[in-house]
């Protein structure tokens, strides 16, 4: 059996919306130690990993590993109904092949129940890119979001250039350019570049993570010379959302 109560229904809304931007189906794996979603977009440009340990839940019961798939649009439509006062309960009804989602209002105790049919399919065992990334940055999600929005005004891609003392975000468009030089405390929370590196990423791919940013205060960014970018969001209350983005190669 699998039954769990997540204390922040409104935060889960943003997480589910981020997951829904990558594929049409969301494959869940639940184990006694926690919940995991791992998905690779069909065009293999992005990968998303959600890990919520059992401690992130108010209550968590899972006797053995189970996998199930739900339609992303159906899940997001339901979780969008969650408010700040709601706890989101998950109950896997294996017999009827459905996931029961219950919003329980913390103040009034009123509950609203949704039944979501499970979809057929096998949850694929996916690996993760195996690379050491020399550039490691922590910044406020708000600053990261602004950087993407600024760059978007001039281009559809962003060049990330890491030097020993600074990070440069550059976008070049037709008759317009954007350059943002960032250093420790201005506005980076932490910065480490064991090697200089430059890589280019599509802004549309990075923007997918914007929803996740609404659930988290900081983002941990890692990248390397023409390597994928790894964005790690620490979810308040426990758990992480990892988002991998493949780089662009200029021909």
């Amino acid at each position, binding site marked *: 059996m699998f039954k769990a109560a997540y204390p922040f229904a409104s935060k889960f809304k943003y997480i589910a919306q981020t997951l829904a931007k990558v594929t049409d189906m969301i494959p869940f794996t639940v184990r006694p130690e926690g919940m995991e979603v791992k998905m690779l977009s069909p*065009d293999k*440009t992005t990968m998303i990993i959600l890990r919520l340990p059992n401690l992130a839940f108010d209550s968590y019961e899972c006797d053995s590993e189970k996998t199930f798939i739900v339609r992303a649009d159906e899940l997001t439509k339901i979780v969008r109904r969650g408010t700040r006062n709601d706890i989101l309960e998950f109950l896997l009804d294996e017999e009827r092949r459905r996931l029961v989602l219950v919003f329980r209002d913390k103040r009034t105790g009123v509950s609203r129940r949704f039944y979501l049919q499970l979809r057929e399919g096998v949850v694929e065992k996916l690996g993760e890119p195996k690379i050491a990334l020399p550039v490691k940055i922590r910044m406020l999600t708000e600053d990261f979001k602004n950087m993407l929005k600024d760059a978007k005004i001039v281009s559809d891609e962003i060049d990330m250039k890491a030097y020993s003392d600074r990070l440069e975000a550059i976008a070049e468009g037709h008759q317009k350019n954007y350059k943002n030089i960032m250093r420790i405390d201005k506005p980076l929370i932490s910065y480490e570049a064991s090697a200089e590196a430059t890589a280019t990423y*599509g802004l549309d791919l990075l923007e997918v993570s914007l929803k996740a940013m609404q659930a988290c205060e900081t983002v941990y960014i890692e990248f390397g010379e023409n390597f994928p970018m790894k964005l790690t969001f620490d979810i308040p209350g426990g758990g992480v959302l990892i988002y991998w983005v*493949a780089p*662009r*190669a*200029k021909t």
Partner: protein
Amino acid sequence: MGVNLKDLIPPEAKRQAEFSEFKGKVFAIDAYNALYQFLSAIRQADGTPLMDSRGRVTSHLSGLFYRTINFIEMGLKPAYVFDGKPPEIKAAELARRTRVKEEAAKKYEEAIRRGDLEAARRYAQMMSKLTDEMVEAAKKLLYYMGIPCIQAPGEGEAQAAYITIRGDSWATASQDYDSLLFGSPRLVRNLTISGKRKLPRKNVYIEVKPEIVELDKVLKYLGVTRSQLIDIAILIGTDYNPEGVRGVGPKRALTLIKTHGSLEKVIPLLKAEFPEDPIKIREYFLNPTVTDNYKIEWSEPDEKCLVDFLCGEYDFSKSRVNHAIERLKKAYRENIKVKQMGLDAWFS
């Protein structure tokens, strides 16, 4: 027309696909097939194709221009493969097509006289004829768009299959199944007609999605070799023997070839007549005339030439064309000039 293997393709060998799966992939598109699709689909209510002020048909150019831009925007890399000289064994099919068009033209006139627009549209679609001038215009348009055109020495589908076998394209794209007989490892159908489509004679719209058919799975699940699949197709009817064998449908053809092994053993049992030697037809599918002399390279769209060509020569709307060129330029910059890599390169 091509061979109709639809009822024979095992469900395990085909699947619906999303365009997002095709990002970064090269498609060898059967150009004649695509142009006929555009010519047939892009029409006014009474079936009249789009035309310029001089009465020249422009439906094929409109379809080719806007659909190709959609492809590039979605990250696909199209290369159009044009038919060359048809093989001699195709004479019977070409004669049959001419007959069909002549009959459709008569019926079209009658339908117009009766005021039956639905029927008129249907017959007008059957009358669709691609002239040499239209093909040359299509090639010129693709050249200005920066899209590769490949001239096949013989059948375009054979050349597209060859390009795919060599790994220069990911799949062939056509509505017909012939490229599978020519050995293409992967065929994508519905590429040029995907989207909302009205069902003929019904006021019902359906969502048409691309369909991937994989040759190795077709052969595996049918339990035949490629040569046997060709034999089955010959019994059903191909472009080189359009009538097939009377009384032999896909299921019987499969059973006959699986039971007896090959056409050589089946033909004496059926006492069938063929417009061409069926063994010669099989040989053509196995060894068609193709060339290594092709280049698949995309280039920057030529804005001025596109405007001059479409608006100056063919009366396209300048504002619509300018808007589409902007989309093309952006898509070219994002999806072709710059290569979006996949994460799979870092998995191992």
